């Protein structure tokens, strides 16, 4: 057999080499960092961090999907080995799992004054990290629908996405169970914050039908974006910021908040065990909680910014963006946005397995 993957603070000690090595390995999702319009190899906010602190950042966009990424690093973390990354960005539920497994290093709050000052209250003291010492939000966002108006007409509802004949085979959904199933639960009139197993099964049946009929081409991670942009995919389940970014290049690509509701989630900055540069990571976290930096980032990625005061800063750069409810959600938007309920290990396994079976793997 294999031993449990559970680690403890005492059992798996990480050494911080930040004093000697001014470097940082940063794993993130694609389209989650501002890029210079003229020179795509430059990332202004990150470059700002480098010049401000002298810490060299190796920035890798190698997270496409929470599960996929977990699969990549779990062997090392379970064995208390370095993943080669100092900081990484994962969604709430995955963050919760990692913390539960003891794979995440505790941050030194004293080195995060900006976080202390500017983290949105709604994102503090969350159940999986009651003292905000493991996971600091990077961005929040919405999971909803998107379409490319160049190749199809407008889409308003989840049902349209799953059944409209002209979309057959040109639709993708997310392999992120909570996003896809959350939308389906809501389209069935159920509440993703609080649903029963039967309700889940109903939603899953609906999904299966769409898969079997060939309506859904693929279940994707973040990689739906290029296909949607190209028009290979007419419509999909996607994440707000990505779509808005695509919309800048082609205004016919639109994000849709279905009437039945959207999913709200946050991605968090995490320092895994055996990461050698925790202090450098803390400097980075603190840097991004500077409202001007946060605004710079938000202006590009168009996700929901967790930093108080960023909206004011953004107003200075781009007032139109600052008023976009998808970036700084208003009450109406928040009413439609639901957070997928927390699952215990047993539930998670059960629902994941069922979901995976439907999405074909």
């Amino acid at each position, binding site marked *: 057999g294999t031993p449990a993957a559970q680690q403890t603070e005492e059992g798996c000690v990480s050494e911080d080499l930040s004093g000697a090595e001014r470097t940082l390995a940063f794993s993130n999702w*694609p389209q989650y960092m501002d890029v210079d319009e003229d020179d795509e190899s430059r990332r202004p906010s990150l470059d700002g961090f480098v010049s401000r602190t002298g810490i060299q950042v190796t920035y890798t966009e190698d997270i496409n999907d929470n599960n996929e990424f977990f699969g990549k690093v779990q062997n090392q973390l379970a064995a208390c080995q370095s993943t080669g990354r100092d900081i990484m960005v994962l969604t709430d539920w995955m963050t919760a799992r990692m913390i539960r497994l003891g794979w995440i290093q505790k941050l030194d709050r004293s080195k995060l004054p900006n976080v202390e000052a500017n983290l949105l209250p709604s994102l503090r003291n969350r159940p999986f990290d009651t003292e905000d010492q493991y996971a600091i939000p990077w961005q929040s966002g919405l999971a909803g629908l998107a379409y490319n108006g160049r190749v199809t007409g407008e889409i308003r509802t989840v049902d349209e996405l799953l059944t409209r004949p002209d979309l057959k085979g040109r639709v993708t959904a997310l392999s992120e169970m909570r996003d896809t199933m959350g939308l389906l639960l809501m389209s069935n009139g159920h509440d993703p914050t609080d649903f029963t197993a039967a309700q889940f099964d109903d939603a899953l049946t609906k999904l299966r039908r769409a898969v079997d009929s060939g309506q859904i081409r693929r279940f994707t991670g973040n990689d739906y974006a290029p296909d949607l942009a190209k028009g290979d995919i007419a419509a999909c389940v996607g994440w707000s910021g990505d779509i808005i970014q695509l919309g800048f290049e082609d205004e016919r690509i639109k994000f849709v908040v279905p009437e039945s509701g959207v999913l709200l989630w946050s991605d968090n900055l995490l320092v895994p065990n055996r990461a050698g540069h925790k202090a450098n990571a803390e400097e980075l976290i603190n840097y991004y909680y500077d409202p001007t930096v946060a605004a710079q980032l938000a202006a590009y990625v168009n996700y929901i910014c967790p930093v108080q005061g960023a909206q004011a800063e953004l107003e200075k750069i781009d007032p139109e963006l600052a008023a976009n409810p998808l970036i700084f959600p208003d009450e109406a938007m928040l009413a439609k946005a639901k957070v997928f309920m927390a699952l215990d290990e047993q539930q998670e396994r059960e629902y994941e397995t069922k979901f995976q079976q439907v999405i074909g793997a």
Partner: protein
Amino acid sequence: MRISRWLAEHWVLGVALLVLGYLFLPIAVVAALSFNRPSSRLSYDFNEFTLDNWRNPCATSEMCEAVLRSVQIGFLATVVATVLGTVMAFALARHRFRGRSGLNVLIFLPMATPELVMGTSLLALFVSGGVPLGFWTIVIAHVMFCVSFVVVTVKARLTGMDGRLEEAAMDLYAGEWQTFRRITLPLVLPGIVAAALLAFSLSFDDFIVTNFNSGTTVTFPMYVWGAAQRGIPPQVNVIGTAMFGVALLLVLATSLAHRARAGGQRRPAP
């Protein structure tokens, strides 16, 4: 009548050319895109001709590092696998010993095992052994799946070789080592070169096994995989096209060199 006879004799060539066309079709797309200035980062359509990508193939340093890394891994894996495999091929072709058939199975099995299975099982080994994943675990894995191909290729060449040549060399005052160095090795060399080329192409192109055993190390195929998820920089196509060209030149050069050594066309029998 004559036309039908000509057709009867040449249609195969026609089909072969069509199939070659099929083999080259995607390469042509890759090559074309290497001259493309994409309309946007996420676009993969041919937009506008440019030489920029070729002038500046390292737009992203990750990509060029990945290419370099893949070449290094490919080189190391090729050298090790070729040495190990060649030596094994010699033992198998030239000696009778106990356990031969078992060994043949051991060599055949990796070729009969889906890459996925090899990748996952090897990963489990590294993790349970506490071996940090990275460059060297990739090399180890690549050597493992290349060795069998090398053995098979070299062995075929060796068994086809006339053993009397070695006797003739010994008769002509060449000791064991000299015989090996002057006769056996040069004669088997084309087989070894072919095996090495095969090994390199297998290693350079591997995604599945590498993906499982790479840790955070990124090889070129893995870079392409990742890039495909977020929009491929056109320079990737430059690398792809260049590798194709290099392969063409390399293989062509070796076969020309070989032909030159063998001394051209065989004379018709007297």
